[in-house]
Protein backbone atom coordinates (compact mmCIF):
# COMPACT_ATOMS: atom_id res chain seq x y z
CA UNK A 1 0.00 0.00 0.00
CA UNK A 2 3.09 2.20 -0.16
CA UNK A 3 2.00 3.63 -3.49
CA UNK A 4 -1.54 4.41 -2.47
CA UNK A 5 -0.72 7.90 -1.33
CA UNK A 6 1.22 9.11 -4.42
CA UNK A 7 -1.62 7.93 -6.67
CA UNK A 8 -4.21 9.54 -4.42
CA UNK A 9 -2.31 12.84 -4.42
CA UNK A 10 -1.80 12.83 -8.15
CA UNK A 11 -5.42 12.02 -8.96
CA UNK A 12 -6.75 14.60 -6.54
CA UNK A 13 -4.42 17.21 -8.01
CA UNK A 14 -5.54 16.40 -11.53
CA UNK A 15 -9.19 16.98 -10.57
CA UNK A 16 -8.24 20.45 -9.41
CA UNK A 17 -5.65 21.40 -12.04
CA UNK A 18 -8.18 20.65 -14.73
CA UNK A 19 -11.47 22.53 -14.45
CA UNK A 20 -13.47 19.30 -13.90
CA UNK A 21 -13.89 19.64 -10.14
CA UNK A 22 -14.74 23.34 -10.27
CA UNK A 23 -17.29 22.94 -13.05
CA UNK A 24 -19.02 20.00 -11.37
CA UNK A 25 -19.04 21.77 -7.99
CA UNK A 26 -20.40 24.90 -9.56
CA UNK A 27 -23.24 23.19 -11.43
CA UNK A 28 -24.10 21.00 -8.46
CA UNK A 29 -24.25 23.94 -6.06
CA UNK A 30 -26.34 26.02 -8.46
CA UNK A 31 -28.93 23.27 -8.73
CA UNK A 32 -28.91 22.35 -5.03
CA UNK A 33 -28.97 26.04 -4.12
CA UNK A 34 -31.96 26.58 -6.35
CA UNK A 35 -33.77 23.61 -4.76
CA UNK A 36 -32.95 24.90 -1.31
CA UNK A 37 -34.21 28.35 -2.23
CA UNK A 38 -37.51 27.08 -3.64
CA UNK A 39 -37.90 24.69 -0.70
CA UNK A 40 -37.38 27.38 1.88
CA UNK A 41 -39.59 29.88 -0.01
CA UNK A 42 -42.42 27.40 -0.15
CA UNK A 43 -41.92 26.63 3.51
CA UNK A 44 -42.10 30.32 4.48
CA UNK A 45 -45.35 30.76 2.53
CA UNK A 46 -46.77 27.77 4.42
CA UNK A 47 -45.58 29.33 7.68
CA UNK A 48 -47.39 32.55 6.92
CA UNK A 49 -50.56 30.64 6.06
CA UNK A 50 -50.28 28.65 9.27
CA UNK A 51 -50.62 31.87 11.23
CA UNK A 52 -54.30 31.77 10.28
CA UNK A 53 -54.65 28.02 10.38
CA UNK A 54 -53.52 26.28 13.58
CA UNK A 55 -54.14 22.81 12.12
CA UNK A 56 -51.56 23.43 9.41
CA UNK A 57 -49.04 24.70 11.93
CA UNK A 58 -48.92 21.40 13.78
CA UNK A 59 -47.32 19.49 10.94
CA UNK A 60 -44.85 22.21 10.09
CA UNK A 61 -41.21 21.27 10.61
CA UNK A 62 -38.24 22.78 8.81
CA UNK A 63 -36.28 19.52 8.76
CA UNK A 64 -39.15 17.54 7.32
CA UNK A 65 -40.37 20.33 5.10
CA UNK A 66 -37.13 21.59 3.62
CA UNK A 67 -34.20 19.30 4.23
CA UNK A 68 -35.69 15.89 3.70
CA UNK A 69 -36.89 16.70 0.14
CA UNK A 70 -33.64 18.59 -0.48
CA UNK A 71 -31.45 15.59 0.34
CA UNK A 72 -33.71 13.22 -1.57
CA UNK A 73 -33.37 15.48 -4.59
CA UNK A 74 -29.64 15.72 -4.05
CA UNK A 75 -29.46 11.94 -4.41
CA UNK A 76 -31.04 12.25 -7.83
CA UNK A 77 -28.80 15.12 -8.90
CA UNK A 78 -25.77 13.10 -7.81
CA UNK A 79 -26.94 10.43 -10.15
CA UNK A 80 -26.52 12.92 -12.98
CA UNK A 81 -23.26 14.43 -11.75
CA UNK A 82 -21.33 11.40 -10.58
CA UNK A 83 -20.58 9.95 -14.03
CA UNK A 84 -18.80 13.22 -14.84
CA UNK A 85 -16.44 12.72 -11.92
CA UNK A 86 -15.75 9.05 -12.54
CA UNK A 87 -15.62 8.81 -16.33
CA UNK A 88 -12.00 9.85 -16.66
CA UNK A 89 -10.55 7.67 -13.90
CA UNK A 90 -9.30 4.84 -16.10
CA UNK A 91 -10.68 5.67 -19.53
CA UNK A 92 -8.45 8.73 -19.89
CA UNK A 93 -5.31 6.82 -18.96
CA UNK A 94 -6.18 4.04 -21.36
CA UNK A 95 -6.78 6.47 -24.19
CA UNK A 96 -3.58 8.45 -23.68
CA UNK A 97 -1.52 5.33 -22.99
CA UNK A 98 -0.29 6.56 -19.62
CA UNK A 99 -1.72 3.42 -18.06
CA UNK A 100 1.16 1.57 -19.72
CA UNK A 101 3.66 3.92 -18.13
CA UNK A 102 1.97 3.58 -14.75
CA UNK A 103 1.60 -0.19 -14.72
CA UNK A 104 5.13 -0.86 -15.92
CA UNK A 105 6.34 0.86 -12.78
CA UNK A 106 6.64 -1.14 -9.58
CA UNK A 107 3.04 -0.72 -8.49
CA UNK A 108 0.15 -3.02 -7.66
CA UNK A 109 -3.22 -2.82 -9.41
CA UNK A 110 -4.97 -2.54 -6.07
CA UNK A 111 -2.88 0.52 -5.17
CA UNK A 112 -3.83 2.21 -8.42
CA UNK A 113 -7.50 1.36 -7.93
CA UNK A 114 -7.78 2.46 -4.30
CA UNK A 115 -5.75 5.60 -4.89
CA UNK A 116 -8.02 6.67 -7.73
CA UNK A 117 -11.17 5.68 -5.86
CA UNK A 118 -10.14 7.55 -2.73
CA UNK A 119 -9.27 10.66 -4.75
CA UNK A 120 -12.69 10.66 -6.37
CA UNK A 121 -14.29 10.12 -2.97
CA UNK A 122 -12.35 13.08 -1.60
CA UNK A 123 -13.62 15.29 -4.42
CA UNK A 124 -17.13 14.09 -3.61
CA UNK A 125 -16.79 14.67 0.14
CA UNK A 126 -15.67 18.24 -0.50
CA UNK A 127 -18.74 18.68 -2.67
CA UNK A 128 -20.98 17.40 0.15
CA UNK A 129 -19.28 19.67 2.66
CA UNK A 130 -20.02 22.66 0.44
CA UNK A 131 -23.73 21.88 0.65
CA UNK A 132 -23.51 21.84 4.47
CA UNK A 133 -23.72 25.60 4.12
CA UNK A 134 -27.48 25.31 3.66
CA UNK A 135 -28.36 23.74 7.04
CA UNK A 136 -25.78 25.97 8.75
CA UNK A 137 -27.42 29.00 7.18
CA UNK A 138 -30.89 27.78 8.24
CA UNK A 139 -29.86 27.67 11.91
CA UNK A 140 -29.71 31.48 11.75
CA UNK A 141 -33.45 31.74 11.09
CA UNK A 142 -34.84 28.47 12.37
CA UNK A 143 -33.95 25.35 14.29
CA UNK A 144 -33.48 22.32 12.05
CA UNK A 145 -32.84 19.03 13.82
CA UNK A 146 -29.23 17.87 13.67
CA UNK A 147 -30.02 14.13 13.74
CA UNK A 148 -31.81 13.66 10.42
CA UNK A 149 -29.44 16.06 8.69
CA UNK A 150 -26.37 14.18 9.87
CA UNK A 151 -27.89 10.85 8.98
CA UNK A 152 -28.75 12.25 5.54
CA UNK A 153 -25.12 13.20 5.01
CA UNK A 154 -24.01 9.79 6.16
CA UNK A 155 -26.47 8.29 3.69
CA UNK A 156 -25.27 10.56 0.89
CA UNK A 157 -21.71 9.53 1.64
CA UNK A 158 -22.61 5.86 1.28
CA UNK A 159 -24.75 6.55 -1.78
CA UNK A 160 -21.87 8.44 -3.39
CA UNK A 161 -19.40 5.71 -2.49
CA UNK A 162 -21.46 3.14 -4.36
CA UNK A 163 -22.07 5.48 -7.32
CA UNK A 164 -18.35 6.18 -7.60
CA UNK A 165 -17.56 2.47 -7.40
CA UNK A 166 -19.97 1.82 -10.29
CA UNK A 167 -18.43 4.66 -12.28
CA UNK A 168 -14.92 3.39 -11.60
CA UNK A 169 -15.86 -0.07 -12.82
CA UNK A 170 -17.37 1.25 -16.04
CA UNK A 171 -14.40 3.55 -16.64
CA UNK A 172 -12.01 0.61 -16.34
CA UNK A 173 -13.86 -1.23 -19.08
CA UNK A 174 -13.56 1.35 -21.84
CA UNK A 175 -11.07 3.82 -23.18
CA UNK A 176 -13.74 6.25 -24.28
CA UNK A 177 -14.81 8.74 -21.62
CA UNK A 178 -18.16 9.44 -23.26
CA UNK A 179 -19.03 5.76 -23.24
CA UNK A 180 -17.92 5.55 -19.61
CA UNK A 181 -20.16 8.48 -18.65
CA UNK A 182 -23.15 7.27 -20.67
CA UNK A 183 -23.04 3.71 -19.34
CA UNK A 184 -22.52 4.85 -15.74
CA UNK A 185 -25.42 7.26 -16.10
CA UNK A 186 -27.60 4.49 -17.51
CA UNK A 187 -26.79 2.10 -14.68
CA UNK A 188 -27.37 4.72 -11.99
CA UNK A 189 -30.64 5.80 -13.58
CA UNK A 190 -31.77 2.21 -13.72
CA UNK A 191 -30.94 1.75 -10.03
CA UNK A 192 -33.25 4.68 -9.36
CA UNK A 193 -36.24 3.83 -11.54
CA UNK A 194 -36.15 0.12 -10.86
CA UNK A 195 -38.29 0.63 -7.75
CA UNK A 196 -41.06 2.29 -9.78
CA UNK A 197 -42.27 -1.03 -11.07
CA UNK A 198 -42.25 -2.49 -7.56
CA UNK A 199 -45.88 -1.52 -7.00
CA UNK A 200 -47.23 -3.80 -9.71
CA UNK A 201 -44.56 -6.51 -9.74
CA UNK A 202 -46.25 -8.64 -7.08
CA UNK A 203 -45.26 -8.96 -3.42
CA UNK A 204 -42.08 -11.03 -3.85
CA UNK A 205 -40.63 -9.29 -6.88
CA UNK A 206 -41.81 -5.95 -5.57
CA UNK A 207 -39.73 -6.24 -2.40
CA UNK A 208 -36.83 -7.53 -4.43
CA UNK A 209 -36.93 -4.55 -6.77
CA UNK A 210 -37.25 -2.14 -3.87
CA UNK A 211 -34.18 -3.69 -2.32
CA UNK A 212 -32.22 -3.26 -5.54
CA UNK A 213 -32.97 0.41 -5.84
CA UNK A 214 -30.18 2.70 -4.72
CA UNK A 215 -32.43 5.69 -4.10
CA UNK A 216 -34.99 3.63 -2.15
CA UNK A 217 -32.35 2.73 0.43
CA UNK A 218 -31.65 6.41 0.90
CA UNK A 219 -35.21 7.15 2.08
CA UNK A 220 -34.47 5.92 5.61
CA UNK A 221 -31.35 8.06 5.94
CA UNK A 222 -33.32 11.13 4.90
CA UNK A 223 -35.89 10.35 7.61
CA UNK A 224 -33.13 10.08 10.16
CA UNK A 225 -33.32 6.30 10.43
CA UNK A 226 -30.06 4.36 10.32
CA UNK A 227 -30.88 0.84 9.24
CA UNK A 228 -28.04 -1.67 8.88
CA UNK A 229 -29.66 -3.20 5.82
CA UNK A 230 -29.32 0.12 3.99
CA UNK A 231 -25.74 0.56 5.13
CA UNK A 232 -24.90 -2.98 4.08
CA UNK A 233 -26.55 -2.44 0.71
CA UNK A 234 -24.30 0.52 -0.17
CA UNK A 235 -21.17 -1.07 1.23
CA UNK A 236 -21.92 -4.27 -0.66
CA UNK A 237 -22.47 -2.43 -3.89
CA UNK A 238 -19.23 -0.42 -3.49
CA UNK A 239 -17.05 -3.36 -2.54
CA UNK A 240 -18.53 -5.56 -5.24
CA UNK A 241 -17.91 -2.97 -7.96
CA UNK A 242 -14.38 -2.27 -6.73
CA UNK A 243 -13.68 -5.98 -6.73
CA UNK A 244 -14.91 -6.27 -10.30
CA UNK A 245 -12.76 -3.28 -11.27
CA UNK A 246 -9.72 -4.97 -9.84
CA UNK A 247 -10.52 -8.07 -11.86
CA UNK A 248 -10.98 -5.94 -14.96
CA UNK A 249 -7.54 -4.38 -14.39
CA UNK A 250 -5.99 -7.78 -13.89
CA UNK A 251 -7.78 -9.23 -16.88
CA UNK A 252 -5.17 -7.86 -19.27
CA UNK A 253 -2.77 -10.33 -17.69
CA UNK A 254 -4.69 -13.34 -18.88
CA UNK A 255 -6.69 -11.93 -21.74
CA UNK A 256 -3.72 -12.10 -24.13
Amino acid at each position, binding site marked *: MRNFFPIFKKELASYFTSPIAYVVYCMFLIIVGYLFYSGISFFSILSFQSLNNPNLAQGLNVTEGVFRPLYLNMGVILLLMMPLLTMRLFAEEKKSGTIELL*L*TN*PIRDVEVLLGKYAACMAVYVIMLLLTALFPVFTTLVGSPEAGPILSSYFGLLLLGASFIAIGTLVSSLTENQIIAAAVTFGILLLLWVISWSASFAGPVWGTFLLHLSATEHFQNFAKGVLDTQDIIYYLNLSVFCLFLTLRSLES*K*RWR*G
Partner: protein
Amino acid sequence: MRVTKYYGPSRAIENVTFSVNQGEVLGFLGPNGAGKTTTMRILTCYMPATRGNVRVAGYDVSKNPLEAKNNIGYLPENVPLYTDMTVRGFLNFFAEIKGIDKDNRKARIEEVMAGCGVDDVGNKLISKLSKGYRQRVGLAQALLKDPPVLILDEPTTGLDPRQIIEIRELIRRLSGKKTVILCTHILPEVEMLCSRVLIINEGRVVAEDTPENLTTGLQRSRRVHLQVDGPASEVTPSLEGVSGVLRVKQSSFVSSSGPCAYDIEIDKSDDVRKELARMIVNRGWGLLRMRTVDLSLEDVFVKLVTTENGG
Protein backbone atom coordinates in the same frame (compact mmCIF):
# COMPACT_ATOMS: atom_id res chain seq x y z
CA MET B 1 20.97 -11.07 -16.64
CA ARG B 2 19.14 -13.24 -19.06
CA VAL B 3 15.97 -12.68 -20.94
CA THR B 4 14.56 -15.72 -22.56
CA LYS B 5 11.17 -15.76 -24.00
CA TYR B 6 9.06 -18.24 -25.78
CA TYR B 7 5.80 -17.12 -27.12
CA GLY B 8 2.86 -19.23 -27.82
CA PRO B 9 0.17 -19.54 -30.42
CA SER B 10 -0.61 -15.83 -30.49
CA ARG B 11 -0.13 -14.36 -33.90
CA ALA B 12 1.72 -11.31 -32.57
CA ILE B 13 5.02 -12.96 -31.83
CA GLU B 14 6.10 -16.55 -31.90
CA ASN B 15 8.99 -18.22 -30.16
CA VAL B 16 11.03 -15.08 -29.82
CA THR B 17 14.02 -16.15 -27.80
CA PHE B 18 16.91 -13.97 -26.87
CA SER B 19 19.14 -13.01 -24.04
CA VAL B 20 20.93 -9.79 -23.34
CA ASN B 21 24.10 -9.61 -21.32
CA GLN B 22 24.79 -7.02 -18.74
CA GLY B 23 26.14 -3.77 -20.15
CA GLU B 24 25.14 -4.67 -23.65
CA VAL B 25 23.11 -2.52 -26.00
CA LEU B 26 20.79 -4.69 -28.01
CA GLY B 27 19.16 -3.24 -31.08
CA PHE B 28 15.73 -4.62 -31.63
CA LEU B 29 14.79 -4.16 -35.25
CA GLY B 30 11.78 -4.96 -37.26
CA PRO B 31 9.33 -3.42 -39.70
CA ASN B 32 6.14 -1.89 -38.42
CA GLY B 33 3.86 -4.47 -36.89
CA ALA B 34 6.59 -7.05 -36.52
CA GLY B 35 5.94 -7.48 -32.83
CA LYS B 36 8.57 -5.18 -31.37
CA THR B 37 6.24 -3.31 -29.07
CA THR B 38 4.47 -6.51 -28.06
CA THR B 39 7.79 -7.98 -27.02
CA MET B 40 8.66 -4.85 -25.06
CA ARG B 41 5.33 -4.93 -23.30
CA ILE B 42 5.86 -8.51 -22.27
CA LEU B 43 9.31 -7.69 -20.97
CA THR B 44 7.93 -4.85 -18.88
CA CYS B 45 5.12 -6.95 -17.38
CA TYR B 46 2.44 -4.91 -19.09
CA MET B 47 1.14 -7.92 -20.99
CA PRO B 48 1.57 -11.58 -20.26
CA ALA B 49 3.16 -14.07 -22.60
CA THR B 50 0.74 -16.70 -23.75
CA ARG B 51 3.47 -19.26 -23.33
CA GLY B 52 7.05 -19.22 -22.27
CA ASN B 53 8.90 -17.35 -19.63
CA VAL B 54 10.76 -14.11 -19.33
CA ARG B 55 13.43 -13.29 -16.81
CA VAL B 56 14.56 -9.74 -16.33
CA ALA B 57 17.47 -9.10 -13.99
CA GLY B 58 16.95 -12.59 -12.60
CA TYR B 59 13.26 -12.14 -11.82
CA ASP B 60 10.52 -13.99 -13.60
CA VAL B 61 8.13 -11.32 -14.84
CA SER B 62 5.05 -13.46 -14.34
CA LYS B 63 5.96 -14.60 -10.83
CA ASN B 64 7.71 -11.56 -9.40
CA PRO B 65 6.45 -8.66 -11.49
CA LEU B 66 7.12 -6.04 -8.82
CA GLU B 67 10.79 -7.00 -8.42
CA ALA B 68 11.25 -7.24 -12.17
CA LYS B 69 9.63 -3.87 -12.76
CA ASN B 70 11.80 -2.42 -10.03
CA ASN B 71 14.81 -3.15 -12.21
CA ILE B 72 13.43 -1.83 -15.45
CA GLY B 73 13.29 1.67 -16.79
CA TYR B 74 10.82 1.76 -19.66
CA LEU B 75 10.14 4.39 -22.24
CA PRO B 76 6.97 3.31 -24.04
CA GLU B 77 6.34 4.04 -27.68
CA ASN B 78 4.78 7.49 -28.34
CA VAL B 79 5.83 8.52 -24.80
CA PRO B 80 2.57 8.77 -22.88
CA LEU B 81 2.84 11.39 -20.12
CA TYR B 82 0.46 13.01 -17.68
CA THR B 83 0.05 16.26 -19.52
CA ASP B 84 -1.64 18.09 -16.67
CA MET B 85 1.44 17.83 -14.46
CA THR B 86 4.60 19.87 -14.42
CA VAL B 87 7.82 18.14 -15.37
CA ARG B 88 9.08 18.25 -11.80
CA GLY B 89 5.74 17.09 -10.39
CA PHE B 90 5.62 14.26 -12.90
CA LEU B 91 9.11 13.05 -12.04
CA ASN B 92 8.39 13.41 -8.33
CA PHE B 93 5.30 11.23 -8.71
CA PHE B 94 7.26 8.47 -10.38
CA ALA B 95 10.14 8.84 -7.93
CA GLU B 96 7.66 8.13 -5.14
CA ILE B 97 6.23 5.14 -6.96
CA LYS B 98 9.66 3.78 -7.74
CA GLY B 99 10.40 4.00 -4.05
CA ILE B 100 13.28 6.45 -4.09
CA ASP B 101 13.62 7.49 -0.46
CA LYS B 102 12.62 10.96 0.49
CA ASP B 103 16.10 12.26 1.33
CA ASN B 104 17.55 11.48 -2.09
CA ARG B 105 14.45 12.13 -4.13
CA LYS B 106 14.91 15.80 -4.78
CA ALA B 107 18.58 15.57 -5.60
CA ARG B 108 18.02 12.58 -7.86
CA ILE B 109 15.24 14.34 -9.78
CA GLU B 110 17.43 17.39 -10.35
CA GLU B 111 20.30 15.15 -11.45
CA VAL B 112 18.18 13.24 -13.97
CA MET B 113 16.59 16.44 -15.26
CA ALA B 114 20.01 17.92 -15.90
CA GLY B 115 21.18 14.67 -17.51
CA CYS B 116 18.26 14.62 -19.91
CA GLY B 117 18.34 18.34 -20.58
CA VAL B 118 14.92 19.14 -19.19
CA ASP B 119 16.06 21.19 -16.20
CA ASP B 120 15.11 24.42 -17.95
CA VAL B 121 11.45 23.38 -18.28
CA GLY B 122 11.09 21.83 -14.82
CA ASN B 123 8.12 23.96 -13.78
CA LYS B 124 6.30 23.91 -17.09
CA LEU B 125 3.21 21.85 -17.71
CA ILE B 126 3.97 18.84 -19.84
CA SER B 127 1.08 19.73 -22.17
CA LYS B 128 3.01 22.87 -23.14
CA LEU B 129 6.18 21.02 -24.08
CA SER B 130 7.34 20.17 -27.58
CA LYS B 131 7.69 16.58 -28.71
CA GLY B 132 11.44 16.60 -28.15
CA TYR B 133 11.12 17.74 -24.58
CA ARG B 134 8.38 15.23 -23.89
CA GLN B 135 10.58 12.48 -25.21
CA ARG B 136 13.32 13.55 -22.84
CA VAL B 137 10.92 13.76 -19.91
CA GLY B 138 9.89 10.19 -20.69
CA LEU B 139 13.52 9.18 -20.78
CA ALA B 140 14.16 10.96 -17.48
CA GLN B 141 11.31 8.94 -15.98
CA ALA B 142 12.92 5.73 -17.20
CA LEU B 143 16.29 6.71 -15.75
CA LEU B 144 15.00 7.95 -12.40
CA LYS B 145 15.84 4.95 -10.32
CA ASP B 146 19.07 4.23 -12.15
CA PRO B 147 17.70 0.83 -13.22
CA PRO B 148 20.08 -1.88 -14.46
CA VAL B 149 17.81 -2.58 -17.44
CA LEU B 150 16.58 0.09 -19.81
CA ILE B 151 13.97 -0.64 -22.43
CA LEU B 152 13.50 2.15 -24.94
CA ASP B 153 10.80 1.83 -27.54
CA GLU B 154 11.64 4.11 -30.45
CA PRO B 155 13.24 6.84 -28.37
CA THR B 156 14.17 9.15 -31.24
CA THR B 157 11.06 9.28 -33.41
CA GLY B 158 9.77 12.77 -33.96
CA LEU B 159 12.89 14.53 -32.78
CA ASP B 160 14.90 17.07 -34.71
CA PRO B 161 18.40 16.04 -35.80
CA ARG B 162 20.12 17.85 -32.93
CA GLN B 163 17.86 16.22 -30.37
CA ILE B 164 18.40 12.82 -31.96
CA ILE B 165 22.13 13.27 -31.56
CA GLU B 166 21.68 14.27 -27.91
CA ILE B 167 19.54 11.24 -27.11
CA ARG B 168 22.02 8.97 -28.87
CA GLU B 169 24.84 10.51 -26.89
CA LEU B 170 22.91 9.78 -23.73
CA ILE B 171 22.37 6.16 -24.70
CA ARG B 172 26.00 5.81 -25.65
CA ARG B 173 27.02 7.07 -22.22
CA LEU B 174 24.78 4.49 -20.63
CA SER B 175 26.12 1.58 -22.60
CA GLY B 176 28.59 -0.50 -20.69
CA LYS B 177 26.99 0.35 -17.38
CA LYS B 178 23.46 -0.67 -18.19
CA THR B 179 21.68 -3.24 -20.24
CA VAL B 180 19.80 -1.40 -22.92
CA ILE B 181 17.23 -2.79 -25.29
CA LEU B 182 16.74 -0.28 -28.04
CA CYS B 183 13.71 -0.86 -30.11
CA THR B 184 13.71 1.04 -33.34
CA HIS B 185 13.32 0.97 -37.07
CA ILE B 186 15.94 3.62 -37.68
CA LEU B 187 18.83 1.57 -38.93
CA PRO B 188 21.77 3.94 -38.76
CA GLU B 189 20.94 4.40 -35.10
CA VAL B 190 21.40 0.71 -34.49
CA GLU B 191 24.66 0.68 -36.40
CA MET B 192 25.90 3.55 -34.26
CA LEU B 193 24.80 2.44 -30.83
CA CYS B 194 24.27 -1.27 -30.61
CA SER B 195 26.72 -4.02 -29.92
CA ARG B 196 24.26 -6.62 -31.06
CA VAL B 197 21.25 -6.59 -33.34
CA LEU B 198 18.17 -8.71 -33.32
CA ILE B 199 15.91 -8.48 -36.32
CA ILE B 200 12.38 -9.74 -36.04
CA ASN B 201 9.76 -10.00 -38.70
CA GLU B 202 6.20 -11.22 -38.41
CA GLY B 203 6.82 -12.22 -34.86
CA ARG B 204 9.90 -14.33 -35.48
CA VAL B 205 13.57 -13.68 -34.97
CA VAL B 206 15.12 -13.67 -38.43
CA ALA B 207 18.65 -12.63 -37.54
CA GLU B 208 20.77 -12.05 -34.50
CA ASP B 209 24.37 -10.89 -34.65
CA THR B 210 26.66 -7.90 -34.36
CA PRO B 211 25.97 -5.14 -36.89
CA GLU B 212 29.33 -5.85 -38.61
CA ASN B 213 28.72 -9.55 -39.00
CA LEU B 214 25.26 -8.96 -40.26
CA THR B 215 26.39 -6.57 -42.96
CA THR B 216 29.29 -8.69 -44.18
CA GLY B 217 28.13 -12.18 -43.37
CA LEU B 218 24.82 -12.18 -45.04
CA GLN B 219 25.87 -10.92 -48.40
CA ARG B 220 26.73 -13.51 -50.98
CA SER B 221 28.07 -11.01 -53.46
CA ARG B 222 30.00 -7.81 -53.34
CA ARG B 223 28.98 -4.73 -55.14
CA VAL B 224 31.38 -2.61 -57.20
CA HIS B 225 30.62 0.79 -58.53
CA LEU B 226 32.37 1.65 -61.78
CA GLN B 227 32.55 4.70 -63.96
CA VAL B 228 33.85 4.02 -67.40
CA ASP B 229 34.44 6.37 -70.31
CA GLY B 230 33.45 4.34 -73.32
CA PRO B 231 30.49 3.35 -75.51
CA ALA B 232 27.86 1.83 -73.25
CA SER B 233 26.71 -0.69 -75.82
CA GLU B 234 30.18 -2.25 -75.85
CA VAL B 235 31.15 -1.81 -72.20
CA THR B 236 28.21 -3.72 -70.72
CA PRO B 237 28.78 -7.01 -72.59
CA SER B 238 32.53 -6.77 -72.03
CA LEU B 239 32.03 -6.38 -68.29
CA GLU B 240 29.68 -9.30 -68.27
CA GLY B 241 32.34 -11.31 -70.07
CA VAL B 242 34.80 -11.09 -67.20
CA SER B 243 34.62 -14.27 -65.15
CA GLY B 244 33.31 -13.77 -61.64
CA VAL B 245 30.95 -10.99 -62.59
CA LEU B 246 27.41 -11.93 -61.69
CA ARG B 247 25.37 -9.02 -62.89
CA VAL B 248 25.92 -5.66 -64.52
CA LYS B 249 23.56 -2.77 -64.23
CA GLN B 250 24.05 0.50 -66.01
CA SER B 251 23.01 3.01 -63.43
CA SER B 252 23.33 6.32 -65.20
CA PHE B 253 23.70 7.43 -68.73
CA VAL B 254 25.28 10.71 -69.75
CA SER B 255 25.63 10.50 -73.53
CA SER B 256 26.05 7.72 -76.03
CA SER B 257 29.83 8.13 -76.07
CA GLY B 258 30.47 9.83 -72.72
CA PRO B 259 31.27 8.19 -69.35
CA CYS B 260 28.72 5.82 -67.89
CA ALA B 261 28.26 4.51 -64.36
CA TYR B 262 27.74 0.82 -63.70
CA ASP B 263 26.82 -1.17 -60.64
CA ILE B 264 28.13 -4.64 -60.90
CA GLU B 265 27.87 -7.54 -58.55
CA ILE B 266 30.82 -9.81 -58.26
CA ASP B 267 31.41 -13.06 -56.51
CA LYS B 268 32.44 -12.49 -52.91
CA SER B 269 35.07 -15.19 -52.79
CA ASP B 270 36.74 -14.06 -55.97
CA ASP B 271 38.02 -10.51 -56.19
CA VAL B 272 38.02 -9.68 -59.89
CA ARG B 273 38.58 -5.95 -59.58
CA LYS B 274 42.06 -6.23 -61.05
CA GLU B 275 40.81 -8.16 -64.09
CA LEU B 276 38.06 -5.62 -64.57
CA ALA B 277 40.51 -2.73 -64.53
CA ARG B 278 42.93 -4.47 -66.88
CA MET B 279 40.16 -5.33 -69.34
CA ILE B 280 38.87 -1.75 -69.41
CA VAL B 281 42.31 -0.29 -69.93
CA ASN B 282 43.16 -2.84 -72.63
CA ARG B 283 40.05 -1.91 -74.57
CA GLY B 284 41.24 1.70 -74.54
CA TRP B 285 38.42 3.08 -72.38
CA GLY B 286 38.97 5.41 -69.49
CA LEU B 287 38.46 3.98 -66.02
CA LEU B 288 37.24 6.99 -64.09
CA ARG B 289 36.20 5.46 -60.82
CA MET B 290 36.04 2.11 -59.11
CA ARG B 291 34.86 1.53 -55.56
CA THR B 292 33.35 -1.30 -53.62
CA VAL B 293 30.03 -0.67 -52.01
CA ASP B 294 29.46 -2.27 -48.61
CA LEU B 295 26.02 -3.52 -47.94
CA SER B 296 24.46 -1.33 -45.27
CA LEU B 297 22.45 -2.72 -42.42
CA GLU B 298 19.52 -1.28 -44.26
CA ASP B 299 20.14 -3.59 -47.20
CA VAL B 300 20.49 -6.56 -44.90
CA PHE B 301 17.29 -5.61 -43.20
CA VAL B 302 15.36 -5.22 -46.42
CA LYS B 303 16.81 -8.47 -47.71
CA LEU B 304 15.85 -10.43 -44.61
CA VAL B 305 12.44 -8.94 -44.37
CA THR B 306 11.58 -9.34 -48.01
CA THR B 307 12.82 -12.91 -48.33
CA GLU B 308 10.83 -13.73 -45.24
CA ASN B 309 7.78 -12.21 -46.81
CA GLY B 310 8.39 -14.00 -50.08
CA GLY B 311 8.81 -17.35 -48.42
